[in-house]
């Protein structure tokens, strides 16, 4: 299985994401924001960082990059897409996911090992987890506060589309402690914390994040 990782100008975590994809057992394929080409990949990761310097709004300019035209079309056709942090912001700006991510309510950048509960395992990216699994991965963001209107939040909860929720503390003011959501089909997932930084014991808080990258292979094997 080939998993593309897009590099935008200002992406920071594309190399870590590629490494996590490899550790998860898939082939990592670098994709470039300026190309109208997904290079035959089976899935796409939009990594964290500050694409286009977060100018205008986080993810607002990346959304219109050539590669995103291809990613949006592929996502509508069912291709698994995972957006992490800035990638989550890009997915919201692209309207592949509802809601938006705004500045942390406490106004400070936050960087911590964050406990999460995985609440939806029927997505392309979370099938390797047990429902209700509690994991610890890195969280680092300045604009990670998930917001949407009450109707949208109720719909997300009602349809079981809250993929992960913050435990212990709400690090950024996200409504209903939401850390990650999916589209209806479950192929598109956006997540504010960084599972790709928790895939090796040597670095990061453990290997709890690896499941996001092994889930794809498990889904492909079925």
């Amino acid at each position, binding site marked *: 299985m080939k998993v593309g990782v897009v590099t935008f100008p200002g992406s920071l975590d594309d190399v870590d994401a590629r490494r996590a994809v490899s550790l998860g057992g898939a082939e990592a394929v670098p994709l470039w924001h300026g190309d109208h080409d997904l290079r035959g990949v089976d899935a796409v990761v939009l990594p964290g960082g500050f694409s286009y310097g977060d100018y205008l709004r986080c993810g*607002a300019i990346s959304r219109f990059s050539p590669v995103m035209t291809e990613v949006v079309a592929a996502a509508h056709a069912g291709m698994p897409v995972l957006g992490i942090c800035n990638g989550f912001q890009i997915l*919201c*700006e692209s309207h592949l996911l509802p809601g938006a991510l*705004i*500045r942390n*309510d*406490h106004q400070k950048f936050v960087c911590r090992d964050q406990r999460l509960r995985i609440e939806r395992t029927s997505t392309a990216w979370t099938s390797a987890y047990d429902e209700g699994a509690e994991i610890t991965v890195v969280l680092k963001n300045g604009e990670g506060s998930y*917001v949407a*209107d009450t109707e949208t939040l109720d719909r997300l909860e009602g349809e079981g589309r809250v993929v992960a929720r913050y435990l212990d503390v709400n690090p950024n003011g996200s409504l209903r402690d939401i850390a990650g959501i999916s589209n209806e089909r479950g192929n598109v997932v956006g997540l504010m914390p960084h599972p790709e930084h928790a895939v090796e014991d040597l670095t990061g808080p453990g290997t709890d994040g690896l499941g996001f990258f092994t889930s794809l292979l498990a889904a492909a094997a079925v």
Partner: protein
Amino acid sequence: MARVVVDVMLKPEILDPQGKAVHGALPRLGFEGVSAVRQGKRFELELDGDLTSARLAEVHEIAEKLLSNPVIEDFEVHVEDHEGSGA
């Protein structure tokens, strides 16, 4: 030539931590009696040629598609300077 201004503001129900930070600084500077501050963005678009209604409609499209995120923001468009209008 015409200058069209697009003002983008967070919707009233969306928390504005930046505005809150600015508001918090005011008493420290000795400014009293400001009950709230909301921070927004102002875009000044210089348009070539005549400002037709079609061009203005295009500015609305720009504001809706790129300059604002309708999930969290509202925008207003107004013509600031229209050559020949003396404005």
